């Protein structure tokens, strides 16, 4: 957003509602304020600072891994966190953490972006690969199981890969680039799926505080629109998201506040204390957090290594509650699971 002073006729010369000096360049979805780009950068960064401070996301001296996919959210997160860390003396040691799924051609661009970020922002980068962590690349998994259920593998493995990478970096926390639109989408999906356990978890700005590596979402209240405008550069495409996301964008057009309203609603869900929630334990095989005997990644790996790749696909109780039932459910769940790439699992 630069070099436009000459051509600002369209906005009818409306002034920025913050500085009252420069011409407005965008309308904030959150507040409907019309502001100039200079004020936008300032409020965008300061709001995130405020979220970090109000929610005690970080403590001085902590080592923080930033989950870096090379996409717009994590790129902006890496930049904003390193900037705020300097400006407000958070005293954090920041690291970039990327996952290489081993999909030919897929991560090449994004890993390049992450490597550029490493140089630009001066943040050390760690790339963990599925091959190193699990002994399988996604290409090898797809060769084995076909294209149908590969999203299940990729989603489960990615989540653990970030935790394992963060453990390798000996970081205290993992920060991810999930934005307000992501969280509103996840809340809707968890309501639609009736997944009460995830619903209560997905609205928390910090999760897993009882586990080894808590995760936090500094962009919880940051609109996607503003993240896209912030660097105002153009990113490489990625997997297309599902219907809930489109619905959220429809809502935003009618009533921009809707995204924050959904987050508010999600936060205020109260689940009856008599509801039996799945207990969080640890996987007997690898020690990762799991509500079942084995964590999802171990169930999936067991299937791959035994040549039964369907094991653990579907809304499973995995090895733990009998496989036959599991197989029956697989078909019914296919539609939801085939969307897993686009949805988020907090």
């Amino acid at each position, binding site marked *: 957003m630069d070099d*436009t002073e000459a051509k600002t006729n369209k*906005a009818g010369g409306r002034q920025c509602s913050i500085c009252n000096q420069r011409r407005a360049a*965008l309308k904030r979805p959150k507040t409907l304020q019309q502001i100039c780009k200079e004020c936008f950068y300032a409020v965008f960064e300061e709001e995130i600072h405020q979220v970090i401070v109000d929610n005690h996301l970080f403590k001085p001296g902590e080592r923080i891994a930033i989950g870096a996919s090379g996409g717009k959210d994590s790129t902006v997160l890496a930049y904003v966190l390193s900037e705020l860390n300097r400006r407000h003396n958070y005293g954090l040691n920041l690291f970039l953490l990327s996952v290489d799924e081993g999909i030919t051609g897929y991560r090449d661009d994004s890993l390049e972006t992450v490597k550029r970020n490493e140089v630009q922002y001066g943040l050390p980068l760690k790339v963990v690969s599925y091959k190193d962590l699990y002994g399988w690349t996604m290409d090898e998994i797809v060769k084995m199981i076909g294209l149908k259920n590969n999203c299940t593998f990729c989603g489960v493995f990615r989540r653990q890969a970030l935790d394992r990478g963060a453990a390798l970096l000996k970081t205290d926390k993992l920060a991810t680039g999930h934005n307000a639109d992501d969280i509103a989408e996840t809340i809707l999906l968890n309501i639609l799926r009736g997944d009460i356990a995830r619903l209560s978890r997905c609205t928390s700005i910090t999760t897993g505080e009882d586990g080894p590596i808590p995760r936090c979402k500094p962009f919880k209240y940051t609109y996607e629109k503003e993240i*896209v405008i912030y660097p105002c550069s153009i990113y*490489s495409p990625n997997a297309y998201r599902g219907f809930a996301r489109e619905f959220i964008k*429809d809502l935003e057009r009618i009533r921009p506040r809707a995204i924050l309203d959904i987050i508010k609603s999600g936060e205020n869900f109260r689940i009856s204390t008599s509801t039996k929630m799945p207990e969080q334990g640890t996987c007997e095989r690898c020690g990762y957090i799991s509500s079942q005997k084995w964590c999802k990644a171990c169930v999936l790996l067991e299937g791959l290594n035994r040549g039964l790749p369907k094991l653990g696909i579907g809304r499973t109780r995995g090895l733990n509650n009998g496989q036959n039932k599991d197989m029956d459910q697989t078909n019914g769940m296919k539609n939801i699971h085939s969307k897993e790439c686009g949805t988020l699992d907090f």
Partner: protein
Amino acid sequence: MQLTLEFGGGLELLCQSVKIHNVDVVLQAGETKLTMRVLLSWIRTNVIKERPEMFMKGDSVRPGVLVLVNDCDWELSGQLDTTLEEKDVVVFISTLHGG
């Protein structure tokens, strides 16, 4: 009318992976000015080669597609009623992709 159109965030895939298009939009007889409404339908016919539903919904862009006219959010200039002028730069960025 000479315009520069820029597609990003995956939208370029709908127009043969070309991000920047320098175009010349000829006004139809009886039209005196070019609005975004007219431009969008022109783009749909002349620039978008596949899956137009990824770009448009009804007579506007899909929600989630960000539009900047001369680097200014089109929500400030009247969205579909924005009037374009010679050498304007219109940017479309899809936010509907992963991050």
